[in-house]
Protein backbone atom coordinates (compact mmCIF):
# COMPACT_ATOMS: atom_id res chain seq x y z
CA UNK A 1 0.00 0.00 0.00
CA UNK A 2 2.57 2.56 1.11
CA UNK A 3 5.23 1.48 -1.32
CA UNK A 4 2.90 1.66 -4.29
CA UNK A 5 1.16 4.92 -3.40
CA UNK A 6 0.90 7.25 -6.37
CA UNK A 7 1.39 10.93 -5.86
CA UNK A 8 -1.43 12.57 -7.74
CA UNK A 9 -0.73 15.67 -9.73
CA UNK A 10 -3.22 18.47 -9.29
CA UNK A 11 -3.17 18.97 -13.06
CA UNK A 12 -4.57 15.50 -13.77
CA UNK A 13 -7.79 15.94 -15.63
CA UNK A 14 -10.85 14.73 -13.75
CA UNK A 15 -13.42 12.44 -15.37
CA UNK A 16 -16.14 14.59 -16.94
CA UNK A 17 -18.78 13.31 -14.49
CA UNK A 18 -16.76 14.21 -11.40
CA UNK A 19 -17.54 17.71 -10.08
CA UNK A 20 -14.33 19.70 -9.75
CA UNK A 21 -15.55 21.81 -6.83
CA UNK A 22 -17.61 21.07 -3.69
CA UNK A 23 -21.34 21.13 -4.41
CA UNK A 24 -22.84 21.66 -0.97
CA UNK A 25 -24.98 24.69 -0.14
CA UNK A 26 -24.01 26.91 2.76
CA UNK A 27 -26.42 26.81 5.69
CA UNK A 28 -26.80 30.27 7.21
CA UNK A 29 -27.02 29.48 10.91
CA UNK A 30 -28.42 32.92 11.72
CA UNK A 31 -31.63 32.02 9.91
CA UNK A 32 -32.19 28.89 11.99
CA UNK A 33 -34.59 29.19 14.90
CA UNK A 34 -32.92 27.96 18.08
CA UNK A 35 -35.09 24.91 18.67
CA UNK A 36 -32.67 22.84 20.68
CA UNK A 37 -32.22 24.56 24.04
CA UNK A 38 -29.89 22.97 26.56
CA UNK A 39 -30.40 24.81 29.84
CA UNK A 40 -29.75 23.70 33.43
CA UNK A 41 -33.21 22.21 33.79
CA UNK A 42 -32.65 20.13 30.66
CA UNK A 43 -29.26 18.90 31.87
CA UNK A 44 -30.79 17.77 35.18
CA UNK A 45 -33.72 16.12 33.41
CA UNK A 46 -31.41 14.28 31.04
CA UNK A 47 -29.26 12.97 33.89
CA UNK A 48 -32.39 11.63 35.57
CA UNK A 49 -33.68 10.04 32.37
CA UNK A 50 -30.35 8.65 31.19
CA UNK A 51 -29.18 7.49 34.62
CA UNK A 52 -25.62 8.50 33.79
CA UNK A 53 -23.73 11.69 34.62
CA UNK A 54 -22.29 14.21 32.19
CA UNK A 55 -19.13 14.24 34.31
CA UNK A 56 -17.80 17.60 33.21
CA UNK A 57 -18.41 20.71 31.12
CA UNK A 58 -17.08 18.96 28.03
CA UNK A 59 -19.90 16.46 28.32
CA UNK A 60 -22.49 19.25 28.27
CA UNK A 61 -20.73 20.87 25.31
CA UNK A 62 -20.82 17.58 23.37
CA UNK A 63 -24.58 17.53 23.80
CA UNK A 64 -24.90 21.15 22.67
CA UNK A 65 -22.84 20.40 19.55
CA UNK A 66 -25.06 17.42 18.74
CA UNK A 67 -28.16 19.59 19.10
CA UNK A 68 -26.66 22.32 16.91
CA UNK A 69 -25.96 19.76 14.19
CA UNK A 70 -29.57 18.55 14.34
CA UNK A 71 -30.81 22.14 14.06
CA UNK A 72 -29.28 22.43 10.59
CA UNK A 73 -31.96 20.07 9.31
CA UNK A 74 -34.54 22.83 9.58
CA UNK A 75 -33.63 24.05 6.10
CA UNK A 76 -34.96 20.88 4.51
CA UNK A 77 -38.55 21.27 3.34
CA UNK A 78 -40.43 18.09 4.16
CA UNK A 79 -43.96 19.29 3.42
CA UNK A 80 -46.10 16.50 2.07
CA UNK A 81 -43.42 13.80 2.51
CA UNK A 82 -44.68 10.64 4.19
CA UNK A 83 -42.39 9.65 7.08
CA UNK A 84 -40.41 6.43 6.68
CA UNK A 85 -40.99 4.20 9.66
CA UNK A 86 -39.22 1.07 8.40
CA UNK A 87 -36.01 0.67 6.43
CA UNK A 88 -37.68 -2.18 4.56
CA UNK A 89 -40.23 0.37 3.29
CA UNK A 90 -43.14 -1.44 1.69
CA UNK A 91 -42.12 -5.00 2.56
CA UNK A 92 -43.99 -6.79 5.31
CA UNK A 93 -42.00 -8.05 8.27
CA UNK A 94 -42.04 -11.83 8.64
CA UNK A 95 -44.16 -12.91 11.56
CA UNK A 96 -43.91 -16.30 13.22
CA UNK A 97 -46.85 -18.50 14.09
CA UNK A 98 -47.81 -18.29 17.75
CA UNK A 99 -46.25 -21.64 18.67
CA UNK A 100 -43.92 -22.17 21.61
CA UNK A 101 -40.47 -23.14 20.31
CA UNK A 102 -38.32 -22.21 23.30
CA UNK A 103 -38.31 -22.43 27.09
CA UNK A 104 -36.87 -24.28 30.09
CA UNK A 105 -33.85 -22.02 30.02
CA UNK A 106 -33.83 -20.76 33.61
CA UNK A 107 -30.12 -21.50 34.11
CA UNK A 108 -29.19 -19.72 30.89
CA UNK A 109 -31.24 -16.67 31.80
CA UNK A 110 -29.90 -16.41 35.35
CA UNK A 111 -26.28 -17.27 34.59
CA UNK A 112 -25.01 -13.77 33.88
CA UNK A 113 -26.63 -11.97 36.79
CA UNK A 114 -24.05 -10.68 39.28
CA UNK A 115 -26.44 -11.22 42.18
CA UNK A 116 -29.32 -13.70 42.46
CA UNK A 117 -31.25 -15.19 45.36
CA UNK A 118 -33.16 -18.47 45.04
CA UNK A 119 -33.81 -18.04 41.31
CA UNK A 120 -34.70 -14.37 41.68
CA UNK A 121 -32.85 -11.38 40.34
CA UNK A 122 -32.07 -8.99 43.18
CA UNK A 123 -32.77 -5.27 43.06
CA UNK A 124 -32.46 -2.66 45.81
CA UNK A 125 -35.61 -0.84 47.02
CA UNK A 126 -37.41 1.12 44.31
CA UNK A 127 -39.61 4.21 44.56
CA UNK A 128 -36.69 6.24 45.83
CA UNK A 129 -35.95 9.00 43.33
CA UNK A 130 -32.36 9.52 42.34
CA UNK A 131 -30.68 12.38 44.19
CA UNK A 132 -29.99 14.91 41.51
CA UNK A 133 -27.19 17.42 41.73
CA UNK A 134 -27.55 20.89 40.23
CA UNK A 135 -26.42 21.34 36.65
CA UNK A 136 -24.62 24.54 37.61
CA UNK A 137 -21.81 22.40 39.05
CA UNK A 138 -20.60 21.85 35.48
CA UNK A 139 -19.89 25.54 35.18
CA UNK A 140 -17.64 25.60 38.23
CA UNK A 141 -14.03 25.37 37.01
CA UNK A 142 -12.99 24.04 40.44
CA UNK A 143 -15.50 21.21 40.30
CA UNK A 144 -13.68 17.92 39.90
CA UNK A 145 -14.21 15.81 36.84
CA UNK A 146 -16.38 13.04 38.21
CA UNK A 147 -14.55 10.48 36.14
CA UNK A 148 -11.40 11.24 38.10
CA UNK A 149 -12.99 10.88 41.54
Amino acid at each position, binding site marked *: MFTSRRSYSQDEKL*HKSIPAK*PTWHDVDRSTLSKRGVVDDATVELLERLSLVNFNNQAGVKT*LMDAVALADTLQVVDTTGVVPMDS*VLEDRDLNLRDDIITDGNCKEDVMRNAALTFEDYFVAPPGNIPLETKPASRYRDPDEEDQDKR
Partner: protein
Amino acid sequence: MHRSSYRLQAYQDPKLAKELRSGEVSVSELCNRCKERASKLNSLNALVTTTFEQAEKHALESNQRIQSGNARHILDGIPFAVKDNFSTKGIRTTCASKILQNYIPAYTATVVEKLEECGAILMAKQIWMNLQWGDSGCTDSIFGPTRNPWLYPYKEREVTVQRSDTQEVQDTDWFISGGSSGGSAVAVATGMVLGALGSDTGGSTRMPASICGVVGLKPTYGLSSRHGLIPLVNSVDVPGVLSKTVDDAAVILGAMCGADPLDSTTVSLPDQSFQLPDEIDIKGLKVGIPQEYHSPRLEEEVLQSWSKAADLFENAGAKVIPVSLPHTQYSLACYSVLCAVEVASNMARYDGIEFGHRSQDHSSTEALYAASRHEGFNQVVRGRIFAGNFFLLRRSVLQICFNLMTT
Protein backbone atom coordinates in the same frame (compact mmCIF):
# COMPACT_ATOMS: atom_id res chain seq x y z
CA MET B 1 9.14 -21.61 5.35
CA HIS B 2 6.48 -24.27 4.89
CA ARG B 3 4.59 -24.06 1.60
CA SER B 4 1.28 -23.75 3.37
CA SER B 5 2.30 -20.68 5.31
CA TYR B 6 3.43 -19.00 2.11
CA ARG B 7 -0.04 -19.58 0.74
CA LEU B 8 -1.54 -17.73 3.66
CA GLN B 9 0.02 -14.58 2.25
CA ALA B 10 -1.99 -14.62 -0.93
CA TYR B 11 -4.93 -16.91 -1.09
CA GLN B 12 -8.41 -17.17 -2.29
CA ASP B 13 -10.82 -19.33 -0.38
CA PRO B 14 -11.64 -21.40 -3.48
CA LYS B 15 -7.91 -22.03 -4.13
CA LEU B 16 -7.17 -22.84 -0.51
CA ALA B 17 -10.27 -24.97 -0.38
CA LYS B 18 -8.84 -26.95 -3.32
CA GLU B 19 -5.60 -27.52 -1.42
CA LEU B 20 -7.54 -28.66 1.64
CA ARG B 21 -9.49 -31.07 -0.56
CA SER B 22 -6.38 -32.51 -2.21
CA GLY B 23 -4.67 -32.99 1.16
CA GLU B 24 -1.76 -30.68 0.36
CA VAL B 25 -2.63 -28.81 3.51
CA SER B 26 -4.58 -30.26 6.42
CA VAL B 27 -7.13 -28.17 8.28
CA SER B 28 -5.25 -28.63 11.55
CA GLU B 29 -2.05 -27.42 9.90
CA LEU B 30 -3.84 -24.40 8.51
CA CYS B 31 -5.40 -23.55 11.87
CA ASN B 32 -2.05 -23.98 13.59
CA ARG B 33 -0.41 -21.57 11.19
CA CYS B 34 -3.15 -19.04 11.88
CA LYS B 35 -2.77 -19.58 15.61
CA GLU B 36 0.98 -19.06 15.41
CA ARG B 37 0.49 -15.93 13.35
CA ALA B 38 -1.99 -14.60 15.91
CA SER B 39 0.40 -15.30 18.80
CA LYS B 40 3.33 -13.64 17.05
CA LEU B 41 1.25 -10.55 16.31
CA ASN B 42 -0.11 -10.15 19.82
CA SER B 43 1.28 -6.64 19.98
CA LEU B 44 -1.24 -5.48 17.36
CA ASN B 45 -3.94 -6.08 19.99
CA ALA B 46 -6.57 -7.39 17.58
CA LEU B 47 -8.01 -10.26 19.62
CA VAL B 48 -10.06 -10.28 22.81
CA THR B 49 -10.76 -13.98 23.34
CA THR B 50 -9.22 -16.86 21.42
CA THR B 51 -11.00 -20.18 20.93
CA PHE B 52 -8.00 -22.25 19.86
CA GLU B 53 -8.86 -25.40 21.84
CA GLN B 54 -12.33 -25.58 20.38
CA ALA B 55 -10.88 -24.73 16.96
CA GLU B 56 -8.45 -27.65 17.18
CA LYS B 57 -11.31 -30.07 17.79
CA HIS B 58 -13.36 -28.63 14.93
CA ALA B 59 -10.32 -28.70 12.64
CA LEU B 60 -9.95 -32.45 13.15
CA GLU B 61 -13.64 -33.01 12.42
CA SER B 62 -13.44 -30.82 9.34
CA ASN B 63 -10.38 -32.62 8.07
CA GLN B 64 -12.14 -35.97 8.41
CA ARG B 65 -15.09 -34.68 6.42
CA ILE B 66 -12.86 -33.28 3.70
CA GLN B 67 -10.73 -36.43 3.42
CA SER B 68 -13.83 -38.61 3.10
CA GLY B 69 -15.24 -36.36 0.39
CA ASN B 70 -18.00 -34.94 2.57
CA ALA B 71 -16.98 -31.30 2.79
CA ARG B 72 -20.04 -29.27 3.78
CA HIS B 73 -19.24 -26.12 1.89
CA ILE B 74 -16.33 -24.34 0.23
CA LEU B 75 -15.72 -22.72 3.65
CA ASP B 76 -15.28 -26.09 5.40
CA GLY B 77 -11.99 -25.90 7.28
CA ILE B 78 -11.43 -22.17 6.76
CA PRO B 79 -10.46 -20.29 9.97
CA PHE B 80 -12.46 -17.15 10.67
CA ALA B 81 -13.04 -14.71 13.51
CA VAL B 82 -15.87 -12.47 14.60
CA LYS B 83 -16.14 -9.10 16.21
CA ASP B 84 -16.80 -9.22 19.91
CA ASN B 85 -20.39 -8.00 19.60
CA PHE B 86 -21.59 -11.26 18.05
CA SER B 87 -22.99 -13.54 20.75
CA THR B 88 -21.19 -16.87 20.92
CA LYS B 89 -22.54 -19.57 23.22
CA GLY B 90 -20.25 -20.19 26.15
CA ILE B 91 -17.63 -17.75 24.87
CA ARG B 92 -17.20 -14.38 26.53
CA THR B 93 -18.73 -11.52 24.52
CA THR B 94 -17.62 -8.19 25.88
CA CYS B 95 -18.34 -5.49 23.29
CA ALA B 96 -14.91 -4.23 24.42
CA SER B 97 -16.73 -2.49 27.23
CA LYS B 98 -16.65 -2.72 31.00
CA ILE B 99 -20.42 -3.07 31.03
CA LEU B 100 -20.20 -6.55 29.46
CA GLN B 101 -16.72 -7.51 30.57
CA ASN B 102 -17.78 -10.87 31.97
CA TYR B 103 -20.87 -11.58 29.93
CA ILE B 104 -21.16 -15.10 28.52
CA PRO B 105 -24.09 -15.55 26.12
CA ALA B 106 -26.24 -18.65 26.19
CA TYR B 107 -26.73 -18.68 22.44
CA THR B 108 -24.83 -18.02 19.23
CA ALA B 109 -25.64 -15.33 16.68
CA THR B 110 -27.36 -16.69 13.60
CA VAL B 111 -24.70 -15.56 11.12
CA VAL B 112 -21.94 -17.16 13.22
CA GLU B 113 -23.97 -20.36 13.47
CA LYS B 114 -24.42 -20.40 9.71
CA LEU B 115 -20.68 -20.10 9.09
CA GLU B 116 -19.98 -22.85 11.62
CA GLU B 117 -22.57 -25.08 9.96
CA CYS B 118 -20.61 -24.66 6.73
CA GLY B 119 -17.62 -26.02 8.59
CA ALA B 120 -15.74 -22.76 9.01
CA ILE B 121 -13.62 -22.74 12.17
CA LEU B 122 -14.08 -19.94 14.73
CA MET B 123 -10.65 -18.89 15.98
CA ALA B 124 -11.26 -15.74 18.03
CA LYS B 125 -13.42 -12.82 19.09
CA GLN B 126 -12.03 -9.49 18.05
CA ILE B 127 -11.42 -6.15 19.58
CA TRP B 128 -13.44 -3.20 18.49
CA MET B 129 -14.30 0.16 19.84
CA ASN B 130 -16.06 0.43 23.18
CA LEU B 131 -19.69 -0.40 22.40
CA GLN B 132 -19.02 0.58 18.80
CA TRP B 133 -18.95 4.27 19.48
CA GLY B 134 -15.90 6.37 19.93
CA ASP B 135 -13.42 7.89 17.56
CA SER B 136 -13.13 6.06 14.28
CA GLY B 137 -9.65 4.87 15.12
CA CYS B 138 -10.54 1.80 17.21
CA THR B 139 -8.63 3.21 20.14
CA ASP B 140 -11.40 3.29 22.70
CA SER B 141 -11.80 -0.28 23.92
CA ILE B 142 -11.12 -1.36 27.49
CA PHE B 143 -8.46 -3.69 26.11
CA GLY B 144 -6.49 -0.82 24.58
CA PRO B 145 -6.12 0.35 21.01
CA THR B 146 -5.70 -1.88 17.98
CA ARG B 147 -2.66 -1.11 15.84
CA ASN B 148 -2.53 -1.03 12.09
CA PRO B 149 -0.15 -3.75 10.86
CA TRP B 150 1.17 -1.49 8.13
CA LEU B 151 4.38 0.33 9.13
CA TYR B 152 4.38 -1.43 12.51
CA PRO B 153 7.62 -3.08 13.58
CA TYR B 154 6.84 -6.74 14.34
CA LYS B 155 8.62 -7.90 17.47
CA GLU B 156 10.20 -10.92 15.85
CA ARG B 157 11.40 -8.94 12.90
CA GLU B 158 10.04 -11.28 10.25
CA VAL B 159 9.38 -8.21 8.19
CA THR B 160 11.45 -5.07 8.35
CA VAL B 161 9.53 -1.98 7.50
CA GLN B 162 10.95 1.45 7.11
CA ARG B 163 9.47 4.80 6.22
CA SER B 164 10.55 6.39 2.96
CA ASP B 165 12.74 8.86 4.85
CA THR B 166 14.60 5.86 6.34
CA GLN B 167 13.45 6.62 9.87
CA GLU B 168 12.51 3.40 11.61
CA VAL B 169 9.05 3.36 13.13
CA GLN B 170 9.24 3.24 16.93
CA ASP B 171 7.00 1.04 19.02
CA THR B 172 5.01 3.95 20.37
CA ASP B 173 4.57 5.33 16.89
CA TRP B 174 1.77 3.25 15.44
CA PHE B 175 -1.16 3.92 13.18
CA ILE B 176 -4.85 3.36 13.81
CA SER B 177 -6.59 0.36 12.39
CA GLY B 178 -9.82 2.23 11.84
CA GLY B 179 -13.06 1.28 13.53
CA SER B 180 -15.07 0.03 14.87
CA SER B 181 -14.27 -3.45 13.44
CA GLY B 182 -10.54 -2.74 13.71
CA GLY B 183 -9.57 -6.09 15.20
CA SER B 184 -11.35 -7.96 12.41
CA ALA B 185 -9.63 -5.90 9.73
CA VAL B 186 -6.20 -6.39 11.29
CA ALA B 187 -6.73 -10.14 11.70
CA VAL B 188 -7.64 -10.53 8.04
CA ALA B 189 -4.90 -8.19 6.80
CA THR B 190 -2.22 -10.12 8.69
CA GLY B 191 -3.50 -13.60 7.92
CA MET B 192 -4.45 -14.48 11.50
CA VAL B 193 -7.71 -15.66 9.96
CA LEU B 194 -8.88 -15.93 6.39
CA GLY B 195 -12.13 -14.08 6.78
CA ALA B 196 -13.90 -12.17 9.52
CA LEU B 197 -17.25 -10.79 10.51
CA GLY B 198 -17.56 -7.20 11.59
CA SER B 199 -20.64 -5.11 11.95
CA ASP B 200 -21.41 -1.96 10.01
CA THR B 201 -23.73 0.82 11.13
CA GLY B 202 -22.05 3.95 9.77
CA GLY B 203 -18.96 2.52 8.14
CA SER B 204 -17.64 0.28 10.91
CA THR B 205 -16.66 -2.52 8.54
CA ARG B 206 -15.80 -0.44 5.50
CA MET B 207 -13.58 2.11 7.25
CA PRO B 208 -11.16 -0.30 8.97
CA ALA B 209 -11.12 -2.41 5.78
CA SER B 210 -10.03 0.63 3.83
CA ILE B 211 -7.43 1.65 6.40
CA CYS B 212 -5.99 -1.88 6.70
CA GLY B 213 -6.10 -2.65 3.00
CA VAL B 214 -8.65 -5.47 2.90
CA VAL B 215 -12.11 -5.91 1.40
CA GLY B 216 -14.95 -4.67 3.62
CA LEU B 217 -18.56 -5.25 2.68
CA LYS B 218 -21.70 -3.86 4.26
CA PRO B 219 -24.47 -6.06 2.84
CA THR B 220 -27.88 -4.57 2.20
CA TYR B 221 -30.02 -4.32 5.31
CA GLY B 222 -32.22 -7.35 5.65
CA LEU B 223 -29.91 -9.75 3.85
CA SER B 224 -28.28 -11.15 6.99
CA SER B 225 -29.80 -11.83 10.35
CA ARG B 226 -29.03 -9.54 13.28
CA HIS B 227 -30.15 -12.13 15.82
CA GLY B 228 -27.30 -12.37 18.31
CA LEU B 229 -25.62 -9.18 17.12
CA ILE B 230 -25.62 -6.92 20.16
CA PRO B 231 -27.56 -3.96 18.80
CA LEU B 232 -26.41 -0.40 18.44
CA VAL B 233 -28.84 1.09 15.92
CA ASN B 234 -31.45 -1.48 14.92
CA SER B 235 -32.48 0.31 11.72
CA VAL B 236 -28.98 0.53 10.29
CA ASP B 237 -26.86 -2.26 11.83
CA VAL B 238 -25.74 -4.97 9.43
CA PRO B 239 -23.29 -7.88 9.96
CA GLY B 240 -20.32 -7.01 7.74
CA VAL B 241 -17.77 -9.15 5.92
CA LEU B 242 -13.99 -8.62 5.90
CA SER B 243 -11.78 -10.64 3.58
CA LYS B 244 -8.69 -10.42 1.43
CA THR B 245 -10.52 -10.67 -1.89
CA VAL B 246 -13.90 -9.79 -3.32
CA ASP B 247 -14.45 -13.46 -4.27
CA ASP B 248 -14.00 -14.46 -0.62
CA ALA B 249 -16.43 -11.77 0.49
CA ALA B 250 -19.02 -13.15 -1.94
CA VAL B 251 -18.54 -16.69 -0.62
CA ILE B 252 -18.87 -15.60 3.02
CA LEU B 253 -21.91 -13.45 2.26
CA GLY B 254 -23.57 -16.32 0.44
CA ALA B 255 -22.99 -18.57 3.44
CA MET B 256 -24.37 -16.20 6.05
CA CYS B 257 -27.31 -14.51 4.39
CA GLY B 258 -30.91 -15.61 4.41
CA ALA B 259 -34.22 -15.08 6.14
CA ASP B 260 -34.21 -15.93 9.84
CA PRO B 261 -37.36 -16.59 11.89
CA LEU B 262 -35.53 -15.00 14.84
CA ASP B 263 -35.03 -11.69 13.01
CA SER B 264 -38.21 -10.43 11.41
CA THR B 265 -36.34 -7.72 9.48
CA THR B 266 -34.61 -10.29 7.28
CA VAL B 267 -35.65 -10.71 3.70
CA SER B 268 -35.67 -13.78 1.48
CA LEU B 269 -34.18 -13.60 -1.94
CA PRO B 270 -34.87 -16.23 -4.60
CA ASP B 271 -31.19 -16.71 -5.50
CA GLN B 272 -28.70 -16.32 -2.67
CA SER B 273 -25.62 -18.05 -4.01
CA PHE B 274 -23.63 -14.85 -4.66
CA GLN B 275 -21.32 -16.65 -7.05
CA LEU B 276 -19.21 -14.15 -8.94
CA PRO B 277 -18.58 -15.12 -12.58
CA ASP B 278 -14.97 -15.82 -13.57
CA GLU B 279 -15.10 -13.18 -16.28
CA ILE B 280 -16.90 -10.03 -15.23
CA ASP B 281 -18.40 -8.04 -18.10
CA ILE B 282 -19.78 -4.59 -17.29
CA LYS B 283 -20.45 -3.37 -20.81
CA GLY B 284 -23.53 -1.19 -20.74
CA LEU B 285 -23.71 -1.10 -16.91
CA LYS B 286 -24.84 2.39 -15.84
CA VAL B 287 -22.70 3.82 -13.06
CA GLY B 288 -23.89 7.01 -11.40
CA ILE B 289 -21.56 9.64 -9.94
CA PRO B 290 -23.49 11.52 -7.24
CA GLN B 291 -22.53 15.16 -7.64
CA GLU B 292 -23.16 15.91 -4.02
CA TYR B 293 -20.40 13.51 -2.94
CA HIS B 294 -17.91 16.28 -3.52
CA SER B 295 -18.11 17.53 0.06
CA PRO B 296 -16.37 20.72 1.24
CA ARG B 297 -13.27 19.13 2.84
CA LEU B 298 -12.68 16.33 0.35
CA GLU B 299 -8.96 15.66 0.00
CA GLU B 300 -7.33 16.05 -3.40
CA GLU B 301 -6.08 12.47 -3.36
CA VAL B 302 -9.58 11.15 -2.71
CA LEU B 303 -10.95 13.30 -5.54
CA GLN B 304 -8.35 11.91 -7.92
CA SER B 305 -9.05 8.34 -6.80
CA TRP B 306 -12.76 8.91 -7.39
CA SER B 307 -12.02 10.14 -10.88
CA LYS B 308 -9.66 7.22 -11.50
CA ALA B 309 -12.41 4.78 -10.51
CA ALA B 310 -14.80 6.48 -12.95
CA ASP B 311 -12.16 6.15 -15.69
CA LEU B 312 -11.67 2.45 -14.92
CA PHE B 313 -15.39 1.76 -15.22
CA GLU B 314 -15.69 3.72 -18.46
CA ASN B 315 -12.69 2.02 -20.02
CA ALA B 316 -14.23 -1.34 -19.15
CA GLY B 317 -17.35 -0.44 -21.13
CA ALA B 318 -19.70 0.92 -18.44
CA LYS B 319 -21.75 4.09 -18.99
CA VAL B 320 -20.65 6.61 -16.36
CA ILE B 321 -23.10 9.49 -15.84
CA PRO B 322 -23.57 12.24 -13.25
CA VAL B 323 -26.56 11.77 -10.93
CA SER B 324 -27.99 13.81 -8.07
CA LEU B 325 -28.64 12.76 -4.47
CA PRO B 326 -29.82 16.18 -3.32
CA HIS B 327 -30.03 15.55 0.42
CA THR B 328 -26.54 14.12 0.80
CA GLN B 329 -25.21 17.06 2.77
CA TYR B 330 -27.88 16.55 5.44
CA SER B 331 -27.27 12.82 5.77
CA LEU B 332 -24.70 13.12 8.55
CA ALA B 333 -26.97 15.31 10.67
CA CYS B 334 -29.85 12.94 9.99
CA TYR B 335 -27.74 9.92 10.90
CA SER B 336 -26.45 11.56 14.07
CA VAL B 337 -29.97 12.07 15.41
CA LEU B 338 -31.42 8.71 14.42
CA CYS B 339 -28.40 6.89 15.80
CA ALA B 340 -28.32 8.80 19.08
CA VAL B 341 -31.99 8.03 19.57
CA GLU B 342 -31.64 4.30 18.96
CA VAL B 343 -28.43 4.09 20.97
CA ALA B 344 -30.11 5.73 23.97
CA SER B 345 -32.91 3.20 23.68
CA ASN B 346 -30.59 0.21 23.23
CA MET B 347 -28.30 1.20 26.08
CA ALA B 348 -31.28 1.33 28.46
CA ARG B 349 -31.05 -2.43 28.94
CA TYR B 350 -27.74 -2.13 30.80
CA ASP B 351 -28.83 -1.75 34.42
CA GLY B 352 -26.64 -4.33 36.15
CA ILE B 353 -29.54 -6.52 37.32
CA GLU B 354 -29.93 -9.37 34.81
CA PHE B 355 -26.45 -9.21 33.27
CA GLY B 356 -23.47 -6.94 32.92
CA HIS B 357 -21.49 -4.85 35.33
CA ARG B 358 -23.20 -4.27 38.69
CA SER B 359 -22.09 -1.51 40.99
CA GLN B 360 -21.87 -1.76 44.80
CA ASP B 361 -24.30 1.12 45.41
CA HIS B 362 -27.46 -0.54 46.74
CA SER B 363 -29.17 2.50 48.29
CA SER B 364 -31.96 2.37 45.71
CA THR B 365 -32.77 0.86 42.33
CA GLU B 366 -32.10 4.09 40.49
CA ALA B 367 -28.85 4.65 42.36
CA LEU B 368 -27.69 1.16 41.41
CA TYR B 369 -28.62 1.70 37.78
CA ALA B 370 -26.89 5.07 37.67
CA ALA B 371 -23.70 3.85 39.35
CA SER B 372 -23.47 0.68 37.22
CA ARG B 373 -23.94 2.68 34.04
CA HIS B 374 -21.52 5.38 35.11
CA GLU B 375 -18.84 2.81 35.83
CA GLY B 376 -19.60 0.74 32.75
CA PHE B 377 -19.89 3.33 29.99
CA ASN B 378 -17.19 5.66 28.74
CA GLN B 379 -17.58 9.37 28.04
CA VAL B 380 -18.42 8.95 24.37
CA VAL B 381 -21.16 6.38 24.94
CA ARG B 382 -22.65 8.56 27.65
CA GLY B 383 -22.61 11.52 25.28
CA ARG B 384 -24.64 9.61 22.71
CA ILE B 385 -27.15 8.52 25.37
CA PHE B 386 -27.68 12.13 26.41
CA ALA B 387 -28.10 13.31 22.84
CA GLY B 388 -30.52 10.49 22.15
CA ASN B 389 -32.60 11.19 25.23
CA PHE B 390 -32.63 14.88 24.36
CA PHE B 391 -34.07 14.13 20.92
CA LEU B 392 -36.59 11.78 22.51
CA LEU B 393 -37.97 14.45 24.84
CA ARG B 394 -41.59 15.15 24.08
CA ARG B 395 -40.80 18.69 22.94
CA SER B 396 -38.05 17.49 20.60
CA VAL B 397 -39.85 14.61 19.00
CA LEU B 398 -42.22 16.65 16.93
CA GLN B 399 -39.73 19.35 16.10
CA ILE B 400 -36.71 17.26 15.27
CA CYS B 401 -37.50 13.55 14.93
CA PHE B 402 -40.59 13.86 12.84
CA ASN B 403 -38.78 16.20 10.51
CA LEU B 404 -35.99 13.67 10.16
CA MET B 405 -38.18 10.79 9.17
CA THR B 406 -39.25 12.87 6.22
CA THR B 407 -35.76 14.07 5.25
